[in-house]
């Protein structure tokens, strides 16, 4: 017990130091690198809190994809010559900010300590209804059954974020290819990796969805794996991004939310909006998840690639 506590204390300390380096570090690139490490450490913290699903999501999305977005922006800014700022923050500003943030942290810490111990939250309620949800992983049961409405809106949020990013496209390249052209040697390690990874990534993604019904995993984690594979394939120069005007691409984007919404609407027609009948729960949830995985993968990959920049 004490050894575990010691480990956790060390982990917390490391998290805080790395977080501070990410926030207050000098160089922008270094700050982003620290942010990615920070995300990995947070994932470790989630493992300690027995939240394996969250750990996977945090490592893949919080650290990985967010990190890619930040690095992508950093390199674009650098090309535009606007990465640097003259001088850092002034000392009085730092002191004032330190005081404010210290107060915030203290107030929140005091609130945390004032919360009563031993609240069970909704674990008993979830455990009681788990048998009727169609899956054995309680987190998946919450995401795709008990609070499926949240997840439906969330999948739309992701999709609309992509449309919002696309809305920034200059008219001249509308319908064009997202991101910048990639140049890579076709005989390098990267392109070998890029050729090897897709089949493997596909298997891993399917496994993550399948296993997600009883073990940690699910559509968002699997979608991120597929998105990462796709990004690597593009980076290796093996394939280019599809143009934003592609009909198949648009179909892939709406497939997941579409199937999800259709299941919800059919439920509404039978009296229970988003209702998933007990007998068909598992196949229905898995169908939703597979469709979602496809859409999430495509959406995430395109979000990282950014708005269309080249004519199709």
């Amino acid at each position, binding site marked *: 017990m004490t050894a575990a506590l010691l480990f956790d204390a060390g982990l917390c300390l490391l998290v805080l130091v790395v977080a501070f380096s990410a926030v207050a570090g000098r*160089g922008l690139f270094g700050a982003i690198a620290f942010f990615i490490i920070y995300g990995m450490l947070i994932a470790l913290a989630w493992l300690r809190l027995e939240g394996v699903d969250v750990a996977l999501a945090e490592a893949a999305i919080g650290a990985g994809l967010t990190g890619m977005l930040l690095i992508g922006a950093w390199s674009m800014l650098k090309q535009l010559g606007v990465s640097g700022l003259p001088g850092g923050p002034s000392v009085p500003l730092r002191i004032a900010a330190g005081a404010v943030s210290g107060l915030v942290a203290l107030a929140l810490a005091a609130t945390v300590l004032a919360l009563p111990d031993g609240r069970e939250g909704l674990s008993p309620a979830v455990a009681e209804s788990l048998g009727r949800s169609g899956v054995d992983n309680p987190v998946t049961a919450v995401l795709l059954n008990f609070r499926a409405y949240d997840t439906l809106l969330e999948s739309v949020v992701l999709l609309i974020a992509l449309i919002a990013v696309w809305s920034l496209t200059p008219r001249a390249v509308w319908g064009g290819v997202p991101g910048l052209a990639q140049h890579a040697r076709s005989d390098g390690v990267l392109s070998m990796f890029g050729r090897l990874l897709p089949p493997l990534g596909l298997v891993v993604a399917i496994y993550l969805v399948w296993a997600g019904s009883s073990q940690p995993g699910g559509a968002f984690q699997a979608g991120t794996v597929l998105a990462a594979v796709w990004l690597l394939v593009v980076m290796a120069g093996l394939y280019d991004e599809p143009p934003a005007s592609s009909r198949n691409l648009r179909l892939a984007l709406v497939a997941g939310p579409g199937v999800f919404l259709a299941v919800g609407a059919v439920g509404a027609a039978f009296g229970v909006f988003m209702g998933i009948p007990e007998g068909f729960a598992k196949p229905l949830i898995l169908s939703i998840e597979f469709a979602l995985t496809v859409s999430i993968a495509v959406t995430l990959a395109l979000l990282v690639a950014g708005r269309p920049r080249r004519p199709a």
Partner: protein
Amino acid sequence: MIALDVMTVLLVCTGLVFFVAGTAGLLRFPDFHSRLHALTKADNLGLGFIALGVAFQMTDAWSVAKLALVWMLAGLAAASVAQLVARAALDRLPDESGGEHKG
């Protein structure tokens, strides 16, 4: 049971030594390419030893296979990243040996 635990501890510790060595190489080696070399090679070996050590705790072959897959993928990823980093370094002036990439 004890023997398996001992093997695990020994192998994981060996793995850690490689990680420490790789990190030391990153910090101490003079130029960019030997740093990168030290880091990727040592980390790869280190991870291999740790995976092997953990494999002794597994009860079924399926889990061992997954561990092997993790090691292989991590190795390939490291190699690809090393190639990308080296390419980025080559694109720059030789005297600016990757100062950006510290951290």
